């Protein structure tokens, strides 16, 4: 089975064994800094810190991190340009403070995306879900989410293989055939997902499932050093930004 690049990175990151709560606090701290602080120097510091942590101590492969940072770029570029365009009766032109607004908008979006990516490339979702449970999300919802996470990979694998089989038989060779094939593909994946759920149900009943899908998360204890460094680092970013702006 082939996975998703960001998820693969999370499972093999050097921070895999750190407490998910620690990583969540660090990234949320950075995310909040990115949206509250001005673009210079706040967003630049957040982006640089998140990237340095990911590529340095967390040892996320630079290629994966770089590619993932580029993913939201289309939206950010399109959104930013639209936001700073101005329409008046004469037509379309740049808003008066276009450059500055564009910089601050794109800056906080990029910095925020990088901070979320730091979390995503170091923490598998199956480590984050127990944290949701502690935050008060009902067990049933967390269990549904954990099944979604597992089945996403099973279904993606089916999707890719079925699509390859269709392509081999010329399935996507014209617009009409592309639609026909895509419809059959979606239906096949959906029926598969139902079959899978039914058979999982029987397999789990055999292992004593009665009320829910309770599992024992790994013990990943919090590190006071990590939390202290997080507080210091986020504090430093805030003070430097406030001082310089």
């Amino acid at each position, binding site marked *: *089975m082939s*996975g998703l690049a960001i*998820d*693969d990175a999370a*499972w093999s990151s050097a921070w*895999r*064994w750190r407490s998910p709560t620690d990583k969540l606090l660090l990234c949320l701290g950075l995310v909040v800094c990115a949206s509250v602080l001005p673009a210079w120097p706040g967003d630049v510091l957040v982006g640089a810190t998140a990237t340095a942590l990911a590529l340095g101590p967390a040892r996320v492969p630079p290629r994966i991190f770089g590619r993932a940072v580029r993913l939201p770029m289309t939206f950010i570029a399109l959104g930013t340009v639209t936001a700073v365009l101005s329409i008046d009766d004469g037509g379309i032109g740049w808003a008066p403070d276009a450059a500055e607004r564009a910089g601050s908008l794109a800056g906080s979006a990029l910095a925020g995306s990088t901070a979320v990516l730091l979390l995503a490339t170091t923490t*598998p*979702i*199956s*480590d984050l879900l127990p944290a949701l449970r502690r935050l008060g999300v009902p067990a049933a919802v967390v269990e549904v989410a*954990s*099944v979604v*996470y*597992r089945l996403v*990979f*099973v279904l993606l*694998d089916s999707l890719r293989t079925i699509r390859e089989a269709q392509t081999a038989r010329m399935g996507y060779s014209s617009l009409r055939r592309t639609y026909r094939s895509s419809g059959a593909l979606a239906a096949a994946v959906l029926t598969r997902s139902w079959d*899978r759920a039914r*058979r*999982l149900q*029987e*397999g*789990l*009943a*055999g*292992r*004593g*499932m*009665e009320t829910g*899908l*309770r*599992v*024992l*998360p*790994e013990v990943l204890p919090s590190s006071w050093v990590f939390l202290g460094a997080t507080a210091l680092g986020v504090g430093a970013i805030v003070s430097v930004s406030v001082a310089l702006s």
Partner: protein
Amino acid sequence: MSHRTLAGAGLVIGYERTRPVLDGATLTVPAGRRLAVLGANGSGKTTLLRCLSGALRPLAGTVTLDGVPLAHSRRGLREHRQVVQLVLQDPDDQLFSASVAQDVSFGPLNLGLPEDAVRSRVVEALDLLAVGHLAGRPSHQLSFGERKRVAIAGAVAMRPCVLLLDEPTAGLDPSAVADTLAALTRLQEHDSTVVMSTHDVDLALRWADDVAVVVDRTVVQGPPEDMLGNDALLARARLERPWALTVGARLRALGLLPEGTLPRDAAGLLAALPDRPGVPT
């Protein structure tokens, strides 16, 4: 855990609208012995194992454990499942959690064990299957053979007295088959009675102490040599005679093998054959 005797008598098992898949099947899983359930695709092997595990309620007949009939009540089933575990053929039908360790912890948690005990069961089960190193990996990064062994570990963590495995070697290459068989031997030494279904007659001959052939909606059980040497039975079951018995019989006729039990595989055959020409046994 200890070996216990699981049996089914006069089992009629059917799906709606069709005639029964099995109609009067009787078999015994002798405590501590290796039973291979042999049958062609679609003969009803899986149905039989599902019935023995309690997942499927027979229309008639009874499943017994040390002679005590299984009650298909909530409580009866719960007790049965603590003793008998079934591992399905497709590991993706069993792995519901992306994390290997979390998945294996599911069964022991359902037994109501304290966390420490669950953790040690998870380690024990993964080690018995020689997949302890996969504990921190996600199931979607594992190979098919690894997923199969993790799925078995999920059942083993329940410490079943009887472990039923549906085609545990299907789709595995020779070295993965060898690893799986070695793991099954460890389980047996750990006091689990192991039953596997297969359509690989050579494997059944090599591995099993007893063979149950699923044929014509019923089950014929006996020693491997008798079952796998019975051409009429095998033809009805759409199976083949293992090569070792075919070749062994001829070599015995040629005076090259001693009377008695025929060798069960190539290694046994080589060991039984004379080393040099002209030394008849």
